């Protein structure tokens, strides 16, 4: 197959996934572009078996303080998610889950402060199948809905236990309604700043009054948990008027309703927000920056087109994402390496490119903290500040140092895998540059890398030399500015 087609598939897998393991790349290389995109978006046709491989030989390792408990220990939950990113055969599902985690950014610490660490982990990350009360944590909900209907995702998030703690919805009482969730659902989750007014926030707070939490399951049993309930006694029942249309006829007022019927207020508002052209454009621009390019402003033609697809498909994210990945803007070679990788993208791609056997994800979790990204702990409800913001000096050092840690850990595996390329320093360099894809390296940079391989003694291609030089090169390439782009 032509190299340009390979470049396109590699680009697709860096964006719609976290780069490609050698087996993934072989698999996707055999497909046409459209087949590859369809395989990615129709991931439900691929069995979801990844969690069953955790702890098995041949996969990246995890290190747990006691039995592996991702449903109650946040450090384990982080490792499980990273494990999925490395090994899932549904890469787009994991990538979209990350997109939604950043979009509905919810922080573990506040929830742990309110409910304790094990409960907070449960509401963030438990799988229903492993929880005695069948609690489905927020990340599992987002993963299950990764390419679902956006309106359904909004309704799920508005009734999500972790979100009801995070943005204080559990305390939204009719006497003095709580504005936190109402503001953020308009500002950050749907339309964006500038498309709503302060009185809209106050009206929204009244709409969601009574969207609270209650205990469920037998008291003192492990199944006991907090879950959403609509509390009619705490719902403010008068009419609520907005500055934007709520109903299809253009009406801006949610009518006064009996308390028993008041939950419909919130559903009406969510329907209106999901159907807003402002929401469509806000999401389209965000998808552009996450999937297409961060160099320059989102292309207006892309935003218009994707916003239209969103509205015409009635907010179906699978249809939207298929269109994103087949858009001319996405496929343009100028979009290759046009994004600043997030720490999680950098770490997972490096593992896929360099190797993982014998490496524990626990050390990746710690390193990612120094790079500025802790999963389940976005800095605030706006999510992470992406783009150049990731590249402070300290964070760049942390990336270089992660590359060093990984290279040191993989030196024996590397020396084995480069055995066929040991004839000359140039052969080794060119092999490793092929494994760790970057935007074009300037000649001066390639020359420095070659000088490094030649330094410290004559080339023999011995095991000891291959261990030192392949680890050193992996460190220099993965720690290079170029490799930070995806």
């Amino acid at each position, binding site marked *: 197959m032509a190299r340009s087609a390979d470049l396109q598939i590699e680009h697709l897998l860096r964006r719609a996934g976290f780069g490609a393991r050698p087996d993934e790349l072989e698999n996707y290389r055999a497909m046409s572009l459209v087949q590859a995109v369809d395989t990615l978006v129709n991931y439900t046709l691929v069995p979801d078996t990844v969690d069953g491989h955790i702890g098995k030989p041949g996969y990246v390792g995890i290190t747990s303080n006691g039995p592996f408990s991702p449903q109650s220990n946040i450090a384990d939950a982080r490792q499980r998610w990273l494990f999925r990113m490395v090994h899932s055969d549904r890469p787009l599902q994991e990538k979209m889950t990350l997109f939604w985690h950043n979009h509905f950014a919810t922080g573990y610490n506040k929830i742990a402060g309110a409910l304790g660490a094990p409960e907070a982990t449960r509401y963030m990350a438990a799988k229903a199948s492993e929880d005695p009360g069948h609690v489905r944590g927020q990340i599992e909900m987002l993963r299950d809905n990764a390419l679902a209907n956006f309106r359904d995702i909004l309704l799920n998030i508005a009734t999500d236990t972790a979100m009801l703690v995070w943005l204080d919805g559990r305390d939204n009482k009719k006497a003095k309604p709580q504005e936190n969730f109402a503001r953020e659902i308009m500002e950050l989750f749907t339309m964006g700043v500038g498309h709503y007014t302060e009185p809209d926030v106050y009206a929204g707070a009244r709409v969601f009054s009574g969207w609270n939490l209650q205990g469920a399951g037998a008291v003192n049993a492990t199944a006991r948990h907090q879950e959403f309930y609509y509390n009619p006694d705490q719902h403010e029942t008068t009419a609520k008027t907005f500055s934007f249309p709520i109903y299809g006829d253009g009406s801006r007022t949610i009518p006064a309703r009996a308390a028993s019927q008041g939950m419909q207020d919130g559903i009406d508002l969510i329907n209106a927000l999901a159907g807003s052209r402002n929401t469509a454009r806000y999401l389209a621009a965000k998808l552009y920056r996450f999937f297409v390019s961060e160099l320059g402003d989102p292309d207006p033609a892309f935003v218009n087109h994707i916003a239209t697809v969103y509205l015409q498909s009635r907010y179906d994210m699978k249809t939207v994402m298929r269109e994103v990945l087949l858009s001319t803007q996405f496929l343009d070679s100028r979009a290759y390496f046009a994004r600043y990788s997030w720490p999680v993208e950098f770490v997972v791609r490096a593992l896929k490119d360099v190797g993982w056997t014998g490496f524990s994800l626990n050390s990746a979790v710690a390193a990612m903290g120094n790079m500025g990204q802790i999963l389940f702990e976005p800095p605030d409800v706006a999510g992470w500040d992406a783009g150049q913001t990731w590249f402070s000096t300290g964070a760049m050092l942390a990336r270089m*140092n992660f590359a060093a840690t990984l290279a040191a850990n993989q030196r024996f595996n590397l020396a084995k895998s480069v055995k066929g390329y040991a004839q000359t320093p140039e052969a080794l360099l060119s092999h490793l540059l092929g494994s760790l894809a970057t935007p074009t390296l300037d000649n001066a940079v390639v020359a420095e890398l070659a000088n490094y391989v030649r330094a410290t003694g004559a080339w023999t291609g011995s095991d000891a030399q291959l261990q030192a030089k392949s680890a050193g090169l992996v460190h220099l390439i993965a720690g290079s500015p170029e490799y930070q782009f995806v």
Partner: protein
Amino acid sequence: MKVTRRTFVRGGVAAFTVTFAAPDFLCDLARAQGAHTRNLVVLYLGGGNDSLSMLVPYNDPSYYSRRPTIAVPAGRVLQIGSDSSRVALGLHPRLTDLKAIFDQGRLALVQRTGYNNQSRSHFQGTDIWSTADPNNSQGLGWLGRYLDSVPPPVNALVGWNTTGSMPHVLQAATIGVPAIADVRAYAFASPNVGNEAAVEKAAAVRICSHVPVDRPALAFVYGSSQGAFETLDRVAAVANYAPSVVYPNTGLGQALRAVAGGMAKAIGTKVFYVTTGGFDTHSAQNVNLINGSYYNLMATLNDALGAFYNDLKNQGLLDDTMLVTFSEFGRRISENGSAGTDHGAASVMMVMGGRVNGGLYGTAPVLNTDPANPTLENNAGDVHYETDFRSVYARVVDGWLGADSKSILGGDFRKATLTFI
């Protein structure tokens, strides 16, 4: 010849002498330019500080009627006297160290700082405070613009960001501010040892000194790598700093410990950026309860600033230091149904340092719910600003940093009554 901002500032005192006739201002400027080690520490209180719980108008009956569960009882505040409108004020009871600093005349509290039509959005609000531009909050940070104006050769550590990421306020056109969240982790690792590691590090340094042409995004990341290599050794020296006091083991305490270390090791930093979060107290604010959420915020603030102040005093660095706080907004006057407060408007800024003229600046809001109450806005729901926050910045820029606030802030925001420096 067109006078650019940089050449204008480089002109320094001489340029001002012929341009302005404001003696105080010139005096300040001359003093600021004479000092070579002045530091500015900017502390961001993330989330929107409820300044009515920090600086309490304890004789205002509306304060108590509008905050039935979260008001600080009059008998518990740390009284600090009355402002020029004769409103009696007291600090939160946990701010004992700040009270002592206030009593020493080294803490200024600037009341009702904000701007017109204040954004209640965390993100837009933070952008506005960071850029000092309520009309276009997407540009460079005001501290970044100051750093851009520092004449070359510019020290790679001219700014020091103690957080892991790059805050908007430090975004500059030409200066990359290093982010050094943990001085001990700020080191270069290698998968090899001995000579092999040294050769490898040398290759990394040489690669980073390369400048990619016509690839600005890549060049930016190159700049970060370069900045890391240029600062590694001096930061390692800061890691060895032995403070004269024990700093609290909080993020803020440890960040200020590093800042004091940077000053003591004379690494040449002019602007330090520090932050502490958790001020978005929508529910269970627990102002009065030991270990309650706002109570803990005050404890963190007080203990860290107290340690920092005393350490600098012991090290003889206090006169070279000014610390300024900001937060994206104050909070709603009336408490909500969750015993918390929602997003509001104007707030209080603090300025602390060895040369600060301490005291109460500006006037407190009157909290009655009369819609015509001029100290409030939003139907008497929120505190209305009295001092434009940019006037505080202007005083800091002119009187402490010795730069020109009109060019840094893009307008004349000087306010004669702000004499805290």
